[in-house]
């Protein structure tokens, strides 16, 4: 169950998308998010869908993998969709039973929400799947580096983020192991009411917490051994460089995202 969490995981590869500068990708994902929230018309959404799934195809990511990233959020997506479907007031009434009703507006709104969330997750996972966390945080650090002048700890935040991403799989594995160990001792995580299940999590969280602290301590020592002392005099193996491909990427994004927004305004 826990192994299904792929959101925020990097899939190493060497596709065109993998080689795009992380800064370009971050900015374009931001632009994509804006476009997704600005647009609401079907025509605009068709353009956005083509754009995002086109990019996924170029990156040679399997659709199944991207859709698996949706799984943890499936409940939220369905919940908001159902709420919108039944509780949107409107003129074109299709069905009614007491306080709940289905209207044409409700159907449209529910569809929009589902499309918006699915594209949002697919688009952002496109960024995290094709950009190694180090590159990702590198890109963020560079984009935000003007803020260093204001003495904001940008490098430290970026390092914390990349370490958090690095330890996600390790901690997931460990959680699995602890759950198995507790199951072997007769713990039951899958039945009973919510309170009961929440209580059952305590014997997992406590050892996980303790071991995380031990890990953090060892990691800090290991980093010190490898001469880490913050931002002072640091160089990077991968130099970030904007190139022709980044320009192409931006132009394509302007065409599609701009196109979608124009469609939205016109219709």
């Amino acid at each position, binding site marked *: 169950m826990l192994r299904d969490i792929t959101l925020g995981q990097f899939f190493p590869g060497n596709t065109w998308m993998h080689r795009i500068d992380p800064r370009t990708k971050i900015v374009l994902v931001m632009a994509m998010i804006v476009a997704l929230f600005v647009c609401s018309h079907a025509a605009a959404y068709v353009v956005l869908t083509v754009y995002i799934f086109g990019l996924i195809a170029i990156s040679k990511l399997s659709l199944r993998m991207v859709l698996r990233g949706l799984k943890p959020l499936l409940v939220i997506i369905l919940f908001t969709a159902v709420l919108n479907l039944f509780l949107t007031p409107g003129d074109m009434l299709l069905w009614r039973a007491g306080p709940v009703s289905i209207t044409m507006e409700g159907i449209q709104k529910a569809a929009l929400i589902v499309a918006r969330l699915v594209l949002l997750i697919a688009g952002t996972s496109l960024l995290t799947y094709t950009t190694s966390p180090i590159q990702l945080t590198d890109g963020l650090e560079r984009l935000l580096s003007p803020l260093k002048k204001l003495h904001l700890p940008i490098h430290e935040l970026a390092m914390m983020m990349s370490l958090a991403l690095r330890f996600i799989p390790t901690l997931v594995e460990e959680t699995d192991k602890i759950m198995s160990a507790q199951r072997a001792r007769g713990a039951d995580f899958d039945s009973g009411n919510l309170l009961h299940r929440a209580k059952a999590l305590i014997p997992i969280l406590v050892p996980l917490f303790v071991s995380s602290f031990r890990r953090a301590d060892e990691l800090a020592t290991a980093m010190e051994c490898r*001469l880490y002392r913050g931002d002072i005099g640091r*160089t990077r193996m991968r130099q970030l460089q904007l190139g022709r491909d980044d320009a192409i990427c931006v132009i394509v994004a302007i065409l599609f995202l701009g196109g979608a927004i124009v469609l939205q305004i016109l219709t």
Partner: protein
Amino acid sequence: MSEMIQAEQLTFRYTDFSHTAHLALDGVNLTIPYGQFAAILGRNGSGKSTFAKHCNAIALPSGGRVLVDGMDTLQPDLIWDIRRACSMVFQNPDNQIVATVVEEDVAFGLENMGVPPKEIRRRVNEALHMVDMYEYRMHAPHLLSGGQKQRVAIAGVLAMQPKCIVLDEPTAMLDPRGRADVMHVLHRLHKEKGITIVLITHHMDEAVQAERVAVLDHGHLILDGTPRRIFVQTRKLHSLGLTVPQSVQLLEALNGCAQAGLEIDALTVEECADRLEVWLKGGRA
């Protein structure tokens, strides 16, 4: 001429929860010359890890001093030079790998040192070749086996071109295959690069491969010498909570029950087989 690591009357005191002081190391005098392959043995809690941490100023002496490549670890302004000269690899590879791609992890130390990008690339590739992990340079570390992870960790310190690598039970969490691979890499670094290796271990078959064995107990240095001289002292080793190589055990048992009168200092299976062959032939003749 300075030595690689020179501990003089090294003492380390710590206070536990009830505020009583304990000595994790008590007057240890241990000198490791350049280019040596040394193994440090001792039962749990004997002070091995504490000693290791003194080798690159992760822990500082409460008494005595430690000179690393001639530099005193008590001098704060030398700390980074000391850590550059003497690197460390720990038991759990998961807790020392920083990056999510193998080659980026190997580059981490060099980036911290401020090495130019081109040179980082060159040294990373070289280090990965040395530990036979070059094909895995784009892999995610958490998908590697324990032995592979540990070799990545070794590449990470190797790229920094240290004179000495201290390894604190690097094979403790590995399967036999992973252990053999790691040991192979350590011997290669020692022979081809002349790097001083200090290996802390609980495995006698690994200690046997070293040029020198030091045994700690309760913070004291008890035995120190070549494996051949150390491992024949079976009774002493047993009293220190250690085992001896199985080959030595076998020959000693034969001496005991069959009055074989064999020399027991056979450290490897081959040596042991030779002795047995000579004895058996002699017995038949």
